[in-house]
């Protein structure tokens, strides 16, 4: 099989080490709505799109609701996944963890606890495309370049990869087009291996994409 396989993954991870007990709400702002996409590739629209985990620094009693522990206690280093009822999405891209007043799904956060919020993989967050199904690389606007593939589900519309980069009078367009051409046709990878084109969360990206200043990648799958 001659064709190359191209891998893309949208990024999405926020980590906070709790600095002190929360007097008010236990809120964590995801840096996506700012437009910089520093933490997430896109704006989260539902709390079910993310997995929220809490790793406790110390063993404590009466720390978590009954959904996590029969007696409410946790041990040092223990990690729990916050239940759907224990998290909510607030305006401004804020994920809120319910406090222990919710005796079932609530959690009390203390100094040193680590909150990790990650994107839950679904169709459209991670994909591997065949290079021989590439349709085009084209400039969408000053700061985005689209890479399109024939739709995997057979639909008339294409599957699309949107790369965001600086407005640099077209230099990024050229770099991206040349890079996609090279990975589709050349034997630059080890024989047979999948090529990771853009996995920002793992800080893995083709050199030419990095040179082009790519800061974000979003998938649009039919």
């Amino acid at each position: 099989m001659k064709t190359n396989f191209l891998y893309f993954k949208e990024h999405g991870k926020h980590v906070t080490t709790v600095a002190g007990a929360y007097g008010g709400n236990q809120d964590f702002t995801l840096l996506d709505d700012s437009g910089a996409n520093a933490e997430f590739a896109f704006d989260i629209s539902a709390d079910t799109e993310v997995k929220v985990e809490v790793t406790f620094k110390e063993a404590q009693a009466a720390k978590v609701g009954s959904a996590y522990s029969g007696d409410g206690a946790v041990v040092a280093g223990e990690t729990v996944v916050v239940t759907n009822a224990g998290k909510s999405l607030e305006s401004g891209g804020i994920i809120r963890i319910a406090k222990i007043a919710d005796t079932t799904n609530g959690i009390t956060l203390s100094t040193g606890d680590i909150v990790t919020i990650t994107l839950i993989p679904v169709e459209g967050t991670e994909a591997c495309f065949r290079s021989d199904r590439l349709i085009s690389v084209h400039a969408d606007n000053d700061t985005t370049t689209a890479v399109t593939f024939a739709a995997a589900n057979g639909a008339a519309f294409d599957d699309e990869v949107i790369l965001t980069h600086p407005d640099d009078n077209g230099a990024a367009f050229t770099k991206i087009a040349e890079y996609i051409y090279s990975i589709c046709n050349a034997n630059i990878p080890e024989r047979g291996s999948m090529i990771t084109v853009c996995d920002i969360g793992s800080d893995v990206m083709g050199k030419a994409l990095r040179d082009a200043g790519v800061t974000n990648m979003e998938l649009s799958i039919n």
Partner: protein
Amino acid sequence: MEKYLYFTNPNDTGAPDAGAELAMYPASAVRAIFAASATTTTIMFVPRDGAAAGDDHDTVVLTHADGDHKNVMAELVSLMKGEKNKSPFVVVSDKAKGVFNITGVTACAITTAD
């Protein structure tokens, strides 16, 4: 030489004996591979019925460890490219025989468009 990808998913402990319990596709029929959920990855194939109509596709959904999509995709590509062996017959996920040649894959589900 073309590789052929083999999957079985019997509903019981016996051999595959019903629809959608066994499938084999040429690697060239793979259109793309997508994450489907936290623990599943979908392989999209050209439909077996050969229909030209839009939106037709067959799928094999692999079940694996949480968040392990990249590894599953990489190992599947490796199998398709014959990195691990030169045989054209490639067992990907064979529940009937308990053979899973992608690390962490434990099951598959086969769905055809027709």
